[in-house]
């Protein structure tokens, strides 16, 4: 019996202690009519060796194609030490540190994480994680409504250049509480400065209205750098809070949200995946959230504090729990309970191993490889660059044909060619979002260019 240690003698002794005739008798309070006799749809058990063979064959079927997608999940080098430590049973198989004295390892690590994340984003306080970047944006919008005591509208301005899937998630999570999202377009005119980014002038139609918060993503979904100072200042001048969505790796080289505009943003969120978390088909990742001290009691999620024990020795504990569902129930800041502790463990080790120097080098190398990728691909007939402004490590290409067909044809050549923007941005035509991190060598880029050259040379399907 897999994972069940009982011998026949154990069972007999235990039933005798209970005074039950059989294990089945332990279920005698369940109405007999409801009891099931078998689960015909479940296959027979496999041994570890058999399930290993099955999983190997499934994995090999998917192979390891060359990846050029970003769009919120990025392929970076992860030091071997990171997951060797994360996989230690003391981290892997512990739970939420409810018993602080028996969880000082997890608690101290989370305190170190909060310190690193607050510093990286230039904010004062951090929580101990949310589920992912998308749900973190939803929580930030809900938090803004609680924190902004004067605004009654629960209206949030969201640029169209913010990750559109994040917006879909924010709608699904927050619209039940009557939040309203207004979409702000990005500059599209030929020759217009800042093409592909959000112009402060496009916010002007909202001047004087009751707006709770303005969201800005840096870099935006197209990889372009937004004029974050102007947008943050516009928000504050119009009595709105400013919410930043950021890639934490980019903050090694880009101005942190705490320094945007004259006052800095009020809440910064994002997905922590670029910090030591593998892509693994989309999860588990972790969402991060940092804010100003004045808003800490409106922040959702676990928060760790340093305090003293009975002997006056420093130690760490869950704090500000009066915000949380297990205390406040229907009046809690969020329903979140379990978050993404193990991924935060990975990120904390990753940030410690790379330090600021390492993160700067990875960020700059990713930016450089993307520049080379764009140069190589835009030399191909039928491929042009959509937006030429300053960018981090992603770019939008426009093709002379259907993007989905090109992606499929590239996949047959073992190249994952990019994210198809056409369903969500039809105004961009046949648009493809591409990314090269430090993991893509010059040879990888040449391989992609050769494959795309072949595909584009073929007759249109």
């Amino acid at each position: 019996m897999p994972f069940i240690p009982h011998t026949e003698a154990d069972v007999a002794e235990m039933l005798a202690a209970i005074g039950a005739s059989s294990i089945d008798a332990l279920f005698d309070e369940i109405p007999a009519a409801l009891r099931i006799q078998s689960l015909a749809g479940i296959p027979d058990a496999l041994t570890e060796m058999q399930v290993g063979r099955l999983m190997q064959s499934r994995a090999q079927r998917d192979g390891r194609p060359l990846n050029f997608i970003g769009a919120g999940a990025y392929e970076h080098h992860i030091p071997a030490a990171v997951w060797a430590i994360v996989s230690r049973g003391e981290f892997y198989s512990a739970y939420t540190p409810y018993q602080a004295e028996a969880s000082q390892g997890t608690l101290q690590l989370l305190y170190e994480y909060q310190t690193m994340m607050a510093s990286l984003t230039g904010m004062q306080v951090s929580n101990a994680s949310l589920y992912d970047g998308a749900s973190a944006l939803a929580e930030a919008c809900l938090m803004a409504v609680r924190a902004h005591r004067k605004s009654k509208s629960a209206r949030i301005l969201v640029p169209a250049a913010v990750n559109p899937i994040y917006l879909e998630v924010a709608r699904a999570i927050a619209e039940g509480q009557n939040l309203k999202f207004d979409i702000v377009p990005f500059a599209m005119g030929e020759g217009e400065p800042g093409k592909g980014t959000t112009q402060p002038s496009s916010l002007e139609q909202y001047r004087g209205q009751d707006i709770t918060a303005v969201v800005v993503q840096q870099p935006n979904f197209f990889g372009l750098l937004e004029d974050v100072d102007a947008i943050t200042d516009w928000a504050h001048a119009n009595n709105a809070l400013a919410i930043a969505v950021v890639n934490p790796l980019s903050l090694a080289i880009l101005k942190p949200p705490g320094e945007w505009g004259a006052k800095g943003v009020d809440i910064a969120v994002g997905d922590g995946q670029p910090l030591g978390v593998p892509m693994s088909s989309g999860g588990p990742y972790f969402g991060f959230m940092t804010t100003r001290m004045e808003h800490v009691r409106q922040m959702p999620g676990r928060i760790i504090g340093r305090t003293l024990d009975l002997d006056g020795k420093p130690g760490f504990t869950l704090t500000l729990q009066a915000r949380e569902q297990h205390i406040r129930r229907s009046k809690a800041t969020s329903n979140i309970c379990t978050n993404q502790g193990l991924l935060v463990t990975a990120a904390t080790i990753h940030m410690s191993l790379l330090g600021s120097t390492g993160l700067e080098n990875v960020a700059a190398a990713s930016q450089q490889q993307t520049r080379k990728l764009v140069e190589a691909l835009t030399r191909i007939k039928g491929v042009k660059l959509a937006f030429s402004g300053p960018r981090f490590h992603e770019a939008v290409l426009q093709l002379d044909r259907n993007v989905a067909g090109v992606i499929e044809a590239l996949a047959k050549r073992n190249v994952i060619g990019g994210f198809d923007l056409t369903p969500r941005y039809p105004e961009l035509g046949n648009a493809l979002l591409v990314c090269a991190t430090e993991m893509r060598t010059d040879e990888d880029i040449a391989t992609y260019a050769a494959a795309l050259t072949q595909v584009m040379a073929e007759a249109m399907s």
Partner: protein
Amino acid sequence: MSEPLIFTHSRPGRSAPGQYPEAVAADVPDNLRRRKRAALPEVSELQAVRHFTRLSQLNFSIDTHFYPLGSCTMKYNPRACNAFAMLPEFLGRHPYGPASAGQGFLECMYELQEMLKEVTGMKGVSLTPMAGAQGEFAGVAMMRAYHKARNDLARTEIIVPDAAHGTNPATATMCGCTVVEIPSLANGDIDVDALKQAVGPKTAGIMLTNPSTLGVFERRIKEVAQIVHEAGGLLYYDGANLNAILGKVRPGDMGFDVIHMNLHKTFSTPHGGGGPGSGAVGVGQRLLPFMPIPLVGKDNEKFRWLDERDLPQSIGRLSAFMGNAGVLLRAYVYMRMLGRHGMHRVAEFAALNANYMLAKLKKAGFDAAYPERRASHEFIITLKRQARDLGVNAMDFAKRLLDYGFHAPTTYFPLLVPECLLIEPTETETKQDLDAFIDALVAIQAEAEQDAAKVKGAPYTLPVRRLDDVRAAKQLDLTYQP
């Protein structure tokens, strides 16, 4: 035993240069460039490895200690599940890679959906919610979407028993509903008369855990289902305690319309020091159109994502991709290793362990909260008498247990049982370990009778003694300031 903060190991100019590429100039406009470096540590690879290894050693965990944390199902997390979920092809797969290049992964997800349907008796399963609370959110959002689609707009009340997890009422609020709480009877069952009074034209539904958080099976469940359905409401099953009934009775057969499962409990994916979890949801016929996307579908032996084009009435997306995929792979491996006959053994041996501990503790003089009832996979001891007579409360017993080398049970939950310990041994523990835990509780009882102060001062052998939570909340120290 303690370990300094990583920042105190740091020295300017030290680093682990084997872990990152050589520097190239970043191309950033002057006004968008970072000026002051973040305060990240500057340490060698060995320093980092030693620091975090030492931190890990300050934790209790399933791999090192018996961890009978009630309502959390801290069972053994098989290493095979981790190893096979972390095959390089799975780790390296981009979530937006085309389905044609991810058939192996998608096949696992499709089969996981099918297996979860079978064990719960539901008609559809979506794997996207990233934790139990997000599964709850999805469930209540689907109930609301169902009523809305029928233009039944007044249904905004969610009924919740007083024994419910805090996430239940918090979720109802997040979905824009109001909460109506109903009491439990002295025998642990729901007060059905109170339920009859509570239902009406405003009832969106009820959220129930069965077996309940009181550690007993809700015997009148069919009657409860009938009352709620006749009033026009739906039934939500909180899967926190699914481990107790796996392969024995199915939520779908009890009359539930929607459920969430905590894969990190019942299906043994790791708790990770507080996540990642996974809160897959299952639905009956009526809620199929509203499931969160994406799902995995199968056409002509090929697997593909189902999205808003397939489910135009979906409540939408709850994560940027498809939830905690790596956790789902672990649950898949676990279910394949258990197989058809392993499922019901989970519930059987979880119930055997819980009922055995309950019987032995009763015999040793402890007070069960529901002495006439069978335990489910967990049970409650109340230390009200010890608190009154000896001045030693549930928290004191919990802290002293740490000194004896056991993680404490859940304390002070459910809220309606005073001075309670909610004890869940799980099926993966041996009789020897259960006996050792019982012996420890008996020994602590003797200590409490002879020297209450000793128990009240515990723990003594952990990295820290009892921490000042009031100071933590009043003098906020949330980040290190050098």
